[in-house]
């Protein structure tokens, strides 16, 4: 049982879609499965689908999220609020509704698996 990992049994519904004129791989929830395929133009298009018009402040947050995630670190709203890029309240205002889910989707990184 030592090497058993439930994730190996999961069937991922991978799909391809065109964002900002480029074909990319996405999962069933629309998150990019390969963060390296991401471009700023895609971010703008995904954001528009989420009802968000990206500003410079949004881009700063996206840069922070990508740097964090691509270096292998976890994301929390608390951490983002303490990053010096944006405070928690502003983060909620920039990505209204479910900020961590939306911001990661726009940033082209996986949805965080954190409860806090």
């Amino acid at each position: 049982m030592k090497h058993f990992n439930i994730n190996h049994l999961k069937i991922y519904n991978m799909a391809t879609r065109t964002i900002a004129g480029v074909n990319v791989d996405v999962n069933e929830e629309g998150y990019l499965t390969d963060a390296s395929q991401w471009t700023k133009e895609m971010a703008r298009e995904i954001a528009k689908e989420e009802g968000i018009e990206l500003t410079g402040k949004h881009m700063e947050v996206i840069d922070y999220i990508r740097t964090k995630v691509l270096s292998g670190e976890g994301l929390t709203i608390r951490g983002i609020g303490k990053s010096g890029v944006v405070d928690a309240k502003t983060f909620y205002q920039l990505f209204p509704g479910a900020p961590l889910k939306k911001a990661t989707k726009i940033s082209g990184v996986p949805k965080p698996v954190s409860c806090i």
Partner: protein
Amino acid sequence: MDKQNDYPLKKIMMICSKGTLEDVYAALVMGNGAVMEGIETKMFFTFFGLDAITKKTMNHLHTATVGNPAMRMPGGLPFPTLLGVLPGVEAGVSKMMKAGMEKLDIPPVEEFLELIEAGGGEIYACKLAADMFKLKKEDFHKTVKDIITVGDLYAMCGGLGTQIVFT
């Protein structure tokens, strides 16, 4: 569930009635988690739960080392109840738990309340319990929006997709 009658959770009222570290955190994690999902969140603290929003007590919550059968020693062995009664043991255990939570990026109570407020969550104190413990608005943390009655609470819980959770 029948897809047609499936309706997403829109609003949640978390009621926190206990003042131990784990009970308060259960309510805070659930409440904050709802805020993170974009669910309208209201939190109501009553009876010993008021300790979590009272300035004097909020940063000194303890977990019970006596009468807590789930309590374990760090190695996993059962925690003898008689050990729990010794002076300082409960404080030490609570400190260890807090350190463990900090490692997981779980914020201290005060910061947790601020995070919930930052996301649009609302925090209320129970009037009856506040009267009982002789607590006034100024005794509560700044994130506490108001001291309300049970009637006020129910008035806030209207609407399709609302759930009340009591902890």
